[in-house]
């Protein structure tokens, strides 16, 4: 049912635009980060899985995620993966056409400027996706096709990473479908992530960009990796032990703890009734003031 709604939504997005087919997406685009700003700029709080159709395995992995792991030298410079990049802070991007110099054929779009610069390539030349034994990357392997006047992008070969910046995982088996539709100087993206390992239903998100003629995405700058902890033993992997419950988010926003745990039911509007019931059965603990 949900999948049907998603595809119907995608169809509406495409129909709602002007009739000109294959509207070029090249240019500098600045992101609208006011949508879901707390999740996107500061980042989701520990234990906040609201509205994510995650399964029990994902919940356990997210519960064990300890932000201290970002002190590992090998984790400090990780870029945002393709299945998340649009939810991070300011993914202002430049789309560029790659045109075959001889035939003039559109071979690919590149999208540069994502956090950590896992810049993406969207192949438009009909090439197949790679072998299952090929390397997976943070950008993944994307192919595009014009559907009506929008661009449908299919991405495979993404690394095991995250769909939210508080440890909610995404596996390397995930497949992402995106629809990009240009309405004049606005660019709308609908992203659908299917992950048989960590999601019970597809994760659907939207994102907006505005054409920015005064923007110029700069060169890729490497992050510097530094020693943050002196007593770190070899192979140090910080994580919360099994059974840890992150109740701070529920306390802070006056929510029943169960309502913060996500799951496919929590995606639908009807879940508000469940939250009301849970609130009656388990009155939230007194709201705490933010401590930041």
């Amino acid at each position, binding site marked *: 049912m949900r999948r049907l709604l998603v595809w119907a939504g995608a169809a509406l997005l495409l129909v709602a635009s002007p009739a000109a087919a294959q509207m070029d997406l090249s240019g500098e685009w600045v992101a609208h980060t006011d949508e879901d700003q707390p999740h996107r700029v500061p980042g989701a709080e520990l234990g906040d899985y609201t509205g994510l159709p995650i399964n029990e*395995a994902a919940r356990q992995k997210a519960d064990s995620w300890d932000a201290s792991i970002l002190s590992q030298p090998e984790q400090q410079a990780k870029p945002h993966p393709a299945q998340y990049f649009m939810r991070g802070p300011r993914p202002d991007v430049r789309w560029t056409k790659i045109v075959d110099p001889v035939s003039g054929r559109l071979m690919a779009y590149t999208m540069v400027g994502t956090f950590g610069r*896992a810049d993406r390539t969207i192949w438009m030349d009909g090439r197949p996706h790679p072998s299952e034994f090929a390397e997976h990357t943070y950008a993944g392997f994307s192919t595009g096709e014009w559907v009506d006047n929008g661009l449908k992008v299919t991405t495979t070969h993404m690394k095991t990473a995250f769909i939210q910046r508080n440890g909610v995982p995404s596996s390397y088996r995930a497949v992402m479908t995106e629809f990009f539709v240009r309405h004049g100087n606005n660019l709308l993206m609908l992203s659908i992530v299917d992950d048989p390992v960590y999601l019970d239903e597809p994760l659907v998100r939207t994102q907006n960009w505005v054409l920015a003629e005064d923007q110029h995405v700069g060169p890729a700058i490497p992050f510097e990796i530094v020693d943050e902890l002196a007593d770190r033993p070899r*192979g140090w992997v910080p994580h919360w032990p099994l059974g840890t419950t992150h109740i701070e988010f529920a306390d802070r926003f006056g929510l029943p703890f169960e309502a913060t745990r996500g799951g496919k039911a929590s995606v639908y509007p009807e879940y508000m009734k469940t939250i009301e019931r849970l609130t009656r059965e388990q009155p939230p603990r007194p709201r705490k003031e933010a401590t930041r």
Partner: protein
Amino acid sequence: MMRRAAAWACLTMSLAVLTRVSAQQSPTDLMIQSRSQEQPQSSARRIALPSGNPLEVLPVQGSVFMIAGGPSNIAVQVGAEGVLLVDAGTAEMSDKILEAIHAISDRPINYIIDTTPDKDHYGGNEKLGVAGVNPTVAPRGLTGPGSTATENPGGGNNPQSLRPQGAIVFANENLLNRMSAPTGETPIEPFALWPTSTFFTRAKTISFNDEAIEMLHVPSAHTDADVMAFFRKSDVVATGDIINTLQYPFVDHKRGGSIRGVLDALNDVIEITVPRFNQMAGTRVVPGHGRILNEADVVEYRDMMTIIRDRVKLGVDEGKTRQQIKAMRPTLDYDGLYSVPSWTGEMLIDAIYDELRQPAAPATAR
């Protein structure tokens, strides 16, 4: 004059190999490569094989390719001098493997490195070895002024040498011990499958195809005979079954393996690998089974093993029984990726539990 001719021959062969490889990259690929940190990934291209061959040949990096789709992965280093294999697959697949090798090089197989005492890795030693050439033996029938070696092969100082003709097969000594038997007893494997050159130190090195190659013995990991091969110039590590992206690492206690050794080995790989830019690209890793990796993937795999080990250890430290620990489901978040019928999450828990309940073994000198 002779030296100049040899140099030209080497150059021509090198160019032939390079042309064959670079022909896979289109001008578009090169344009994108010039502006991206990780795109397009080399392994997204496949080398064409004759129809009916179920294997796949993927460029990894530099002079190294991976043959996949068989019982185990095979890393192949090619160059003007010849071909070096890391692992040999099974005997049943040898003809197909030879066909795959010929798709990227027409030079002879000179060396095979066995990474582990599992038959899906060394079963092809005999056929691939015989199809190859021992680079330390002068070619049969080589003649020249002053030469006496008209028929018999021989090394430089020993023209009547009885050295084997086929490729040299390297392995850690423990691997030979696990295949062979004391005099008078029946060996596990026939002589023809045995490695021809073993080492018992931590590392053995050779230079081949203008590249330094380190064979690193990893004590007590998947087994006690595991070897990784590090191609320094190509910047590729072939790990054998220390890494299997299709399942949890199999720890064979009966053959000297250990969880602690696997974690040590994974940390070794992370110390060797260097990303090119922000955890992307850089050193590539060819695992014993599964897909090509870089450091970020190895870190994910190491973190998984460490977290599961720590969860089981916490249960043991708290005095929980094996069943109580299993009831905590310490592998739940990774089973969807790594649990397979032949080596489930529960089996891994058993292995960790058993090892943690054993008296601590003396630390290995590293």
